[in-house]
């Protein structure tokens, strides 16, 4: 089957979504299909640009290429999933969140635009129509499926997939640090973790790995750490290689991952694959589908004191932390998350 993965790419920004699309192509090709990515560049400011990108997507024809039929397209991100096709399957990573769950929150910017309400309604309207065009709809996680049901009244099937290089994650003897690998971005809440570091009673140390979407936020986090006197506790590694990431997971005492309402969250899964406990928050979305409080990790309130207490608990109880990590790995294994299952569902 000739399959196109249609997604959206913000030029020079790379994260989980890009890896996800690449891994899906790999999995489809492994299963004998011919797959490629069609990535639409996306710009969301000024907000009128969103509408123009939507229109551009609707004007694309992916039904065939060079005289050969494209059998299926798999839509993943807005507005690329608006591209019409008679055999469109949706595997939704997330919608344009500023128009949905982030509307009115600190993280959503569309509400600050003069025509924000109008654009929001146009997005919802187009989404509803695009979803009705699909032959089947899957969501990246239960959380994404829940949002789709809540905002658009559309049913979808949660479909988990393994993180990249899932088979290479492992566990070593622990060293004195917790690990927080993620793009430096306000919604990932590195800020909360730095503030929590200032509240810890133990010499908790955190290694932050990841590139900032914009350098201002990077500088802000470093200044915050300095202001709170935690520069020695908060270590910024910057962007690290896949190999370094896997080793850093393996040797960590545990993983912290407190984003605001994450869609899915590779970090949680990678931590579990490395047999590490995860500290997350009650409003962290996708990670809550995997972390069970005091079984596979700790779930704190999204405030510095509560998060600090959770980190202290892991720091003080190393053997318990190890046990939580082990239970996390067992839980992951029990879910039978595999690419072959994913491909089978998307192509059937």
């Amino acid at each position, binding site marked *: 089957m000739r399959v196109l993965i249609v997604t959206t790419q913000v030029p020079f920004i790379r994260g989980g979504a890009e890896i996800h699309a690449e891994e899906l192509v790999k999995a489809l090709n492994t299963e004998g299909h011919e797959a490629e990515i069609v990535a639409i560049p996306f710009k969301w400011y000024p907000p*009128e640009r969103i*509408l123009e990108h*939507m*229109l551009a997507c*609707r*004007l694309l024809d992916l039904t065939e290429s060079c005289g050969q039929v494209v059998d299926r397209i798999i839509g993943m991100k807005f507005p690329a999933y*608006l591209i019409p096709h008679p055999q469109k399957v949706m595997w939704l990573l997330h919608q344009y969140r500023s128009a949905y769950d982030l509307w*009115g929150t600190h993280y959503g910017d569309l*509400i*600050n*635009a*003069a*025509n*924000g*309400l*109008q*654009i929001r*309604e*146009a997005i919802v*309207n*187009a989404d509803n*129509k695009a979803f009705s065009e699909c032959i089947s709809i899957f969501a990246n996680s239960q959380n994404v499926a829940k949002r789709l049901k809540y905002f658009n009244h559309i049913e979808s099937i949660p479909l988990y997939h393994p993180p990249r290089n899932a088979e290479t994650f492992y566990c070593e003897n622990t060293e004195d640090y917790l690990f927080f690998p993620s793009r430096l971005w306000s919604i990932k809440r590195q800020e909360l973790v730095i503030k929590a570091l200032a509240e810890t009673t133990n010499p908790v140390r955190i290694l932050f790995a990841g590139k900032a979407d914009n350098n201002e936020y990077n500088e802000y986090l470093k200044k915050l750490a300095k202001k709170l006197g935690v520069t020695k506790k908060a270590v910024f590694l910057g962007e690290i290689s896949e190999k370094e990431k896997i080793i850093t997971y393996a040797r960590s005492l545990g993983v912290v991952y407190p984003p605001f309402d994450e869609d899915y969250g590779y970090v949680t899964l990678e931590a579990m694959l490395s047999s590490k406990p995860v500290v997350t928050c009650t409003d962290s979305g996708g990670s809550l589908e995997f972390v069970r409080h005091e079984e596979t990790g700790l779930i704190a309130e999204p405030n510095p004191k509560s998060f600090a207490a959770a980190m202290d608990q892991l720091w003080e109880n190393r053997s318990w932390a190890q046990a939580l990590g082990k239970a996390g790995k067992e839980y992951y294994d029990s879910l039978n998350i595999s690419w072959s299952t994913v491909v089978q569902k998307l192509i059937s």
Partner: protein
Amino acid sequence: MKLNWFSPIPPAQTGIAEYTMRLLPILTNYAEVLVWTDEPKWNLDIEKYAKVRQYNLASVPWKEINQADLNIYHIGNNSNFHYQIWQISKQCPGLVILHDCRLQHFFAGIYREKHNDWQIYASYMKQYYGVEGEQASLRFWNGDLTTEYMAEYYPLTFLALENAVGVVTHTKEVFQKILKHKNRWVVGYAPLPYVSKWQGTRNGKVITPPYRLIIFGYLGSNRRLEVFLKALSNLSEKNQFRLDIYGQVWDKNYICHQIQQLGLTNLVKLHGFVEEAKLDSALANAHLAINLRYPTMGEASVSQLRIWSHALPSLVTQVGWYAEQSESTVAFVRPDHEIEDIQQHLKNFLANPLDFSHLGENGWQLLQDYHNLENYSQAIIDIAKKSGKFRHTTIAYSFADKIGEELSNWINYERVDMDIRGVAQAIHFIST
């Protein structure tokens, strides 16, 4: 329903501020209203009914504005009161309530008096009226054409509606015009509401000569005072009438001279501006109101509603909003037969004053039935609900403009049929 209400509010000296003040106690029974003003101070009485927020164009609090279901913008001809509102409406689509239907005074006020920017003014005139409009704008700028002339032939009404999703008019004529001109807005007609402050009785008036005639308001040349004086002076029964003139006359010396020349000194009295209560008292004691306008800007007349609130019969010019009224509520004067019609009505009045009283009574009933706050509030809410649903569909028009402009650069329209259809379908997908 939650509404943002962009309107002048007291102490702003405008009828629209007064209208908002009177409407809010009723409107807020149907919706949560947040009033927005660009003025730093306001009459605190308004906060009995709605919260008030201040905005300025340099830093508009869109986040708070976007919490409401719809913005309602009040647009009238005074650029001092409505310029900032229009600026907001250009950025954030909403429902426009047209208090004036010919908005040339408004735009001339902005671009000639405030900004002295002919380029922008002329570009709008060209956009709406082509090369002819552009040329007229130059003649207007040079003082060869009056604002009244421009308003008559180039009203620029649609410029105020460019980003609107809905429009409310107070006249049936404008309602029909907007419907016909472009089918792109939710359009509603709602008779302008009026609440009288007059506490006195309207019964028991003695109807015996001399009969009291009354003219009031801002008396510009379009109020036909000269014509009326002439008609009265040539009437053989003129001594059975007394004419009271209240308000500001455009050229008092000239009018005084006319009164003298026409031999009406004993019959006509100029009172100038008086307090509201005194004017109401004069209206209560009058037998016939003279409410002529030619030309007219076409909008609903608050003066006429006030006349009816005293159950007072009236002569009106058969143009604009006045022409929409029933013959059972007013006596019409045709613009091209003014003296003839005025004299005939005055003679009819003398012959049977009671028949004229019925006009006033019918007008009073009309006021109660149609021009009341309750009906008006419900109409606004209905139109606002429809407009809210229509909001994202207006995106199609901005797309069409943009794509049309882009395509015109590189496409031969005689050969495009299918391409255009594809674009239209894509726009339809997003916006409807």
